[in-house]
């Protein structure tokens, strides 16, 4: 159990299928509960919130664990996943990319093909269904890049619930297209003008809304972090990704992968794909953080490259912070990874040596995006391009009989403005200018 890659030539055994009806995340690893009854993953996690939120979190915890155990809840959610979104998403053998890089076989889990273009829809459908079972009358959420906000606005429309999305003022400017779509879906988007005016401030604002409206409102948190039960619940709803990968790869190759690579912002897509393989020590798990422009403070969002233990926004984990414990500014070319904290289960798994963390720079990420587009015809989100960037480094180091699965957590359409700017595309710029001036009809 140390996350080291299996010795070359030693083939992992053919996996058994997971137990039928097993719907949620791994509940224990090496005798440690994931999490314990108060939401701790070892020293991480917990529930550090003002007392007035405790009743709501207790109610949510009790309701969640009751509903998730019910087969009818599971069936209803599975049907939504299949018919409203797109489950199972394909596991695609990237033959061209594999040939180009010359090493391990690369498979891509295409989460970007689900509704709203990213894995976020998995836990949004799960949580909206739970909210409706709990009789909640309103959804609120935070969003960074707008992908979680978009997915929440989507499920709010589907479940007929009013929805308020909190979004940092800086992010609203960066992701104006998502703001437009959220409003089209009927959501109220509130610009958060406090702090750094990015994701962390949107989380704070949503928590504050919840304190005012705690009885009737459901806070649909967007990642595997925050106070208990969110880290466990979001992981559970995302664990479908890894379950599918196991079954799909078993069918394609008759065995487990040798390595699974995922980008890590808060941790929802990574814990979603890792969970299935946590108890399979021969499967190496790699999380790729946002290396940004450089690893200097304020220039990146790699919590394990300069972060420190802290207790912020309701949970204990690693945070990028200054000497006094003030949360630092972060940067990433991908707004979805631009966050100072990381999910508590991932911090624990790193301590156990079960998940290895690396980072990819903005520069590498753009190169990865371009390579995947040219080699496979797939436009990957900038978040997921971090995982591709590391696969580009790692796959060539491995022999050809190894298998690497990369979680493509989202598709790249949303990133057109950022990419066009980064690639200094003159035609796009001219188009935007002409369009704004009313020259294009």
């Amino acid at each position, binding site marked *: 159990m140390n996350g080291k890659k299996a010795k070359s030539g030693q083939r992992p055994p053919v996996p058994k299928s997971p137990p039928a009806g097993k719907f949620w995340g791994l509940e224990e690893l090496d005798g440690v509960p994931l999490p314990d009854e108060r939401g701790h993953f070892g020293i991480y996690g917990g*529930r550090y919130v003002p007392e*007035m939120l405790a009743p709501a979190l207790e109610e949510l915890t009790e309701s969640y664990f009751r509903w998730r155990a019910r087969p009818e809840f599971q069936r209803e959610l599975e049907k939504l996943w299949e018919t409203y979104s797109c489950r199972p998403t394909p596991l695609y053998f990237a033959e061209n990319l594999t040939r180009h890089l010359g090493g391990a076989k690369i498979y891509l889990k295409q989460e970007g093909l689900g509704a709203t273009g990213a894995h976020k829809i998995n836990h949004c459908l799960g949580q909206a269904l739970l909210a409706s079972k709990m009789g909640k009358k309103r959804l609120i959420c935070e969003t960074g890049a707008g992908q979680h906000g978009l997915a929440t606005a989507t499920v709010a429309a589907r479940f007929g619930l009013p929805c308020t999305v909190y979004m940092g003022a800086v992010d609203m400017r960066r992701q104006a297209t998502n703001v437009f779509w959220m409003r089209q879906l009927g959501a109220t988007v509130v610009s958060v003008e406090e702090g750094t005016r990015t994701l962390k401030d949107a989380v704070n604002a949503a928590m504050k809304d919840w304190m005012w409206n705690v009885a009737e409102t459901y806070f649909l948190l967007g990642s595997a972090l925050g106070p208990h039960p969110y880290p466990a619940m979001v992981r559970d709803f995302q664990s479908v990704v890894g379950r599918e990968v196991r079954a799909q790869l078993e069918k394609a190759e008759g065995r487990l992968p040798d390595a699974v690579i995922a980008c890590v912002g808060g941790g929802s897509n990574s814990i979603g794909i890792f969970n299935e393989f946590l108890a399979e020590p021969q499967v190496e798990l790699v999380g790729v953080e946002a290396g940004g422009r450089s690893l200097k403070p304020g220039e990146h969002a790699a919590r394990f490259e300069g972060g420190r233990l*802290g207790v912020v926004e309701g949970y204990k984990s690693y945070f990028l912070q200054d000497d006094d*414990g003030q949360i630092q500014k972060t940067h990433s070319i991908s707004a979805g990874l631009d966050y100072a904290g990381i999910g508590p289960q991932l911090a624990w798994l790193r301590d156990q040596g079960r998940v290895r963390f690396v980072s990819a720079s903005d520069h590498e990420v753009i190169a990865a995006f371009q390579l995947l587009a040219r080699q496979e015809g797939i436009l990957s989100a900038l978040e997921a391009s971090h995982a591709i960037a590391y696969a580009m480094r790692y796959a060539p180091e491995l022999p050809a009989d190894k298998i690497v699965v990369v979680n493509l957590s989202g598709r790249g359409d949303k990133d057109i403005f950022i990419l066009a700017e980064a690639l200094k595309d003159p035609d796009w710029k001219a188009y935007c200018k002409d369009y704004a001036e009313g020259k294009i009809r």
Partner: protein
Amino acid sequence: MSPEADRPQGRAAALVEVFARLRKDSRVGLMTHIVFGYPTVEASRHLVDIMARSGVDLIEVQLPFSDPTADGPTITHACQKALDRGVRVADGLAFAREVTKKYAVPILFMSYFNVVFNYHEKGEARRGVAAFAKAAAGAGAAGLIIPDLPPEEDQERYPETCREHGLHPIYVTSPNVNDRRLEAIAKAASGFVYATSRTGTTGREVQIAMEELGRFLDRAHRLCKLPVAVGFSISKREQIEALSGKAEMAVVGSHLIQVYEKLGLSALEREIRTLAGRKD
């Protein structure tokens, strides 16, 4: 806790004295609040001076944190401005040392748990509750108010560590909290309990439902067996008087920042004297 072994000393004892005096005078006390370093450290000095001279019973000094989840826009903005000016935790401790030497009124530090958890003395590697509690007590504080540390998280023996250093761990509770949680607070708390008048964040003018609040305060007294201070949406002398027989102390925070921002220091002094019930 055993009352003999843990009998408070120094500033912690002075806080207990404050409540004894209030009981004797059958008066509702007043705790006023500042965000340290807002708008400047010099202004914080003036504010504490005014508060001490106006007969305030306790002063809450908030050490700014980048992500103050329990605070509304007024205090959140004040914290951000103070941090933007480069205010450090060590400056807040030095400030407390200065004012507690000068004035008899007990002060309490309010902040968020990450500030406490990450605190360390210059040149010392060890961070955490014990280091902060030692420094805060050394600066003359009577207690700590950390709204995002619930009793069940009990990090680094927080309540015991506070008491060992002569600080009261003050817990914040709210009307929607059940008896079981109030009992947990009762086990951990000392000094007094800080009750919010409603759910929500600080600093919005909301009509307080007095009957419901009264029932909650009864429950808090019965279960916690400590004096209760009421905060959130308190901005008028009449509200403080209405707490008579229901609570021992009223807390005014955001309102004072708003008065200071809009009307300046001398208006603030008049406001504090009015709130404190001073007729002279």
